[in-house]
């Protein structure tokens, strides 16, 4: 039989645990889990505090001496709390999750379109990054990184008004896609810098 490696299709949230006794309510959305309003703008301190409080209740270390079933539940609960925290902490992921709650799939595989002028600018930038990486130009890489980060920061402000004030979900979807693209670019520039340092 011919064995073929996996073919990527796209990511999906985990199915929810079908458990009767729960440490956390698996049917709650991530905002509700932390007792937060479902908004893009959030108080990072409040999120951090709620996260720590939940983890100190459900973390496997708190149930290490318990029976197998409780330990498994602690593992699942703690994993979900970690996933929820990660999804809300990062602004782009938070926006994507918020759109998902509104039934909008921001990163669907069937529609990957970006605005042509955005795409064009980013393709140029990618080229600049690979040129700088190839010639070992650390200063140029740092400058590009700063530029991309500034652009991310601007787009996050746009996103806040689209999501929290105008409820312009379709344009928010575009902004999320652009931000995702830029995050990937930041990661690539960072790994090019890491490559130079090693």
């Amino acid at each position, binding site marked *: 039989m011919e064995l*073929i*490696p*996996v*073919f990527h299709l796209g*990511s999906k949230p985990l199915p929810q645990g079908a458990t009767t006794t729960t440490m956390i309510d698996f049917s709650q959305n991530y905002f509700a889990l932390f007792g937060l309003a479902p908004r893009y703008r959030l108080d990072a301190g409040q999120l951090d505090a709620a996260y720590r409080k939940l*983890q100190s209740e459900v973390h496997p270390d708190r149930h*290490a*001496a318990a029976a197998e079933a409780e330990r498994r539940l602690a593992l699942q609960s703690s994993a979900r709390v970690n996933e929820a925290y990660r999804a809300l902490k990062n602004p782009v992921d938070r926006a994507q999750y918020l759109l998902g709650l509104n039934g909008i799939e921001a990163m669907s595989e069937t529609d990957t379109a970006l605005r042509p002028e955005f795409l064009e600018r980013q393709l140029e930038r990618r080229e600049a990054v690979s040129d700088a990486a190839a010639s070992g130009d650390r200063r140029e890489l740092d400058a590009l990184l700063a530029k991309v980060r500034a652009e991310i920061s601007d787009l996050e402000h746009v996103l806040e008004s689209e999501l929290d004030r105008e409820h312009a979900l379709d344009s928010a979807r575009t902004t999320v896609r652009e931000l995702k693209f830029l995050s990937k670019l930041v990661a690539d520039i960072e790994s090019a810098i890491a490559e130079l340092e090693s």
Partner: protein
Amino acid sequence: MALLQIAEPGEALPEKKQRLAVGIDLGTTNSLVATVRNSMPVVLPDEEGRPLLPSIVRFGVQEIDVGYGAEAVQARDPHNTIVSVKRLMGRGLADLSDDRRFPYRFIDAPGMVQIQTRVGVRTPVEVSAEILKALRLRAERSLGAPLDGAVVTVPAYFDDAQRQATKDAARLAGLNVLRLLNEPTAAAIAYGLDNGSEGIYAVYDLGGGTFDISILKLSRGVFEVLATAGDTALGGDDFDHRIYCWIVEESGVGPVSPGDTRLLMVKAREAKENLTVHPSAPIDATLSSGEAISLSLTADTFAAITRTLVGKTLGPVKKALRDAKLEASQIKGVVMVGGATRMPQIQKAVADFFGQPPLNNLNPDQVVSLGAAIQANVLVGNRSEDEDWLLLDVIPLSLGLETMGGLTEKIIPRNATIPIARAQEFTTFKDGQSAMAIHVVQGERERVADCRSLARFELRGIPPMVAGAARIQVTFQVDADGLLSVSAREQMTGIEASIAVKPSYGLSDTDISRMLEESYVHASDDMEARALAETQVEAERIVAATSGALAADAELLTLDERTAIESALSEVRRLASGRDRRALHAAVEALNRSTEEFAARRMDRSVSKALTGRRVDALN
């Protein structure tokens, strides 16, 4: 027995039983075991008061020697005396290309190398298990009872194969593993709880063979690891090796035999330690050929020949800071861990990089084991009211799958907080594809060939569909030990396949259970010896008590009763010097039964004596 000993009223009751747990630092060069006693973590020394156990195992003709005894003979018996075995854990021969300096007779085996010794082929897991077993026995002797559990530390940068190998070694050694704990995190717990620290700290951990850097946020009892990076093949050993190369070069000696290599490595290490406090170190040795070496290594030369090694630690430091999105100036303190951080050039490099003197106020050899002991104490259920702290650790390397074209699809990114579960959907690539190969890898590189292969499994029985129609959800779950399990499920038919990622290091599950059984046989030997000793002590006590009672109150017994007791007594005496614990135990029980009535009568007599006495007193 109880009836012959009349308990004094008000005698102290035994305290509420503390469960016995230890923290074990299984190091490249030295290992330690620690426990929490009276709320204080303490290292448990050996019978001669030495806290360290050299991580050296010698397979002798008759017996296995671990620690100082093995260290003393390593130059004489290099092929059978295994040092730095931690560097071999979860590693294949191909991974060790820069480690040719080991004089062992390696055998290439899938996943992990094996070593040919005079007693047969041994895996690094089995060698490590000998070290862990020696520590377990040390702890049990010291604490007086079998352990309930242990936390074993691993370098933060250990991958899944290395972690799994460590856990297997601990199981082989008869330990109940409560948790695998990252070494720098263990150090942070010991340091943070000791100093009541708040803020962002870096832990710079340069051990004998591994290097870790972890960035942690300490706040209100939560130890949150923000990022970790490192090199699992960089440590004090490498500095020794540079000195060794320098000795060989400077002295111009010819090819060096394995025994002489060991001798010179020991001299190199002594010189390195010497240079921590002195500006230069003499190196004198006589090789097996009779050739004499006499050199002097200055601190400046030492710094010069190890500059690249020191520099190699700074790459991961920068990477960890970048992953944590922090600058060096935002670090409040740098905690130094591992004996190799004593080297002045390391202290200087760290101080220069972070712009502050590093923190050296904890013993760098012991701090990891102390932190592990604190965690073990909590996990085993001895948490006290005021110990309200929580540890949130991360996974050091990204986990992913091989996709079409030999590329890696990351499912869980590095530095994700554990435990974590992530699912991703995949589909079939060809019409009618009925099986899917799932290849789990760990690492940061794009190409699968550049990552570490962890496991392969197959999802079979996918019903015929056109390409792209099947929905296969692959779920990765990493537990609090940092160990991965993967499952795959076809969404429409519900066909499932899953695997607890067991690296294929040549030990099958059957091998593991066989070795476990053997170790239980040995463990039960140990336990049997202890039980026999305990029964003998008990026999001695009952013999003495019964003889004393007979001498004092024999008139309370009929002749038959007295004969019965005396015959039971002589049976215990006869068996007490033998090795048959069960027979001795039965004889002790028989003696106990035969004296029950006697004991009751003696009790009555002593009570009426007391009453009589009191009455007389009262009348007076």
